[in-house]
């Protein structure tokens, strides 16, 4: 098939006419959209400080764990030192509360993302 014939066929597409109620349907949808309250944006301003504190806390936790491991005699270390450090810190009661708070944070964020209707 020649280039011109391909052009002729593809540019000679017959046109379809939108159904008579098309405009009304679109306008109904647009009006519905306009009357709906806008979705509440995710409260990044409130979340960010908490997130920043969590990151700093996690960093401190790891740093503390590492410095503690460095002070330990080498022959006592049989598993990767980072794992031991993290496990030790996690065993502390404060770490449990921190983990719970993080978990709650993640759960509520996931719920808000999956159920947009809950925002309003």
């Amino acid at each position, binding site marked *: 098939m020649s280039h011109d014939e391909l*052009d002729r066929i593809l540019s000679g597409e017959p*046109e379809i006419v*939108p159904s008579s109620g098309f405009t009304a*349907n679109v306008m109904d949808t647009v009006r519905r959209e306009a009357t709906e309250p806008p979705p509440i944006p995710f409260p990044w301003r409130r979340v960010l400080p908490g997130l920043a504190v969590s990151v700093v806390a996690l960093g401190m936790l790891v740093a503390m764990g590492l410095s503690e491991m460095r002070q330990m005699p080498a022959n006592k270390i049989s598993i990767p030192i980072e794992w031991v450090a993290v496990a030790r810190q996690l065993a502390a009661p404060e770490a449990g509360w921190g983990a719970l708070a993080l978990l709650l944070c993640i759960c509520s964020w996931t719920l808000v993302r999956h159920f947009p209707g809950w925002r309003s």
Partner: protein
Amino acid sequence: MQPRPAGTGLTGGGGARPVSAAEDRAQVGKVLAGDIAAFEPIVRRWQGPLVNLAYRFCRDRARAEDMAQEAFLRAYRGLHQWRRDAAFSTWLFAVAANVYRSELRRIPPAVPLERAAQLKDARAFDGLEAQDRDRAVRELVQTLPPKYRDAVVLFYFHEMDVPAAARSLDVREGTLKARLSRAREILRSKLARLLTAQKEAR
């Protein structure tokens, strides 16, 4: 070249009138000021082109209207993003093309592929009247890889206007030309395979 809005589609005759960029601009201004009813003339003016463009992507009339409705809704939501330095139609077609491409990624068109499978039977292709054969060629476009299909659909929708099609696709003109060239090659090879099979079947 700017597409002509018409009641019946991009190149349709009935009800066609010159594009009034000023009208678009004024009505968009009203909508942005809170007058929702001002969006209705915009829908009336552009419904033909948008439904026809959607139809070229999916080749299903009912789905084309659904897709065009979604495109209008997306345009309404993003009306404030239209920068007045470009024609409203340019922006609207880019929005619509994005909506249609996403929609086809989500649910690929089913009918054309079935049809294409039928066309593998060379005798079926042989028996087609010229009109049906043309339709079969148009449906073969749906079997192209998406980036080539999009280039072909928009190029012919914009009446073979490369800059307009490139703007709608948000690609460079050179990229569009390369894709068109490759798309034609693929189409020709698919058609050649059909015709060869047809001869062998005789």
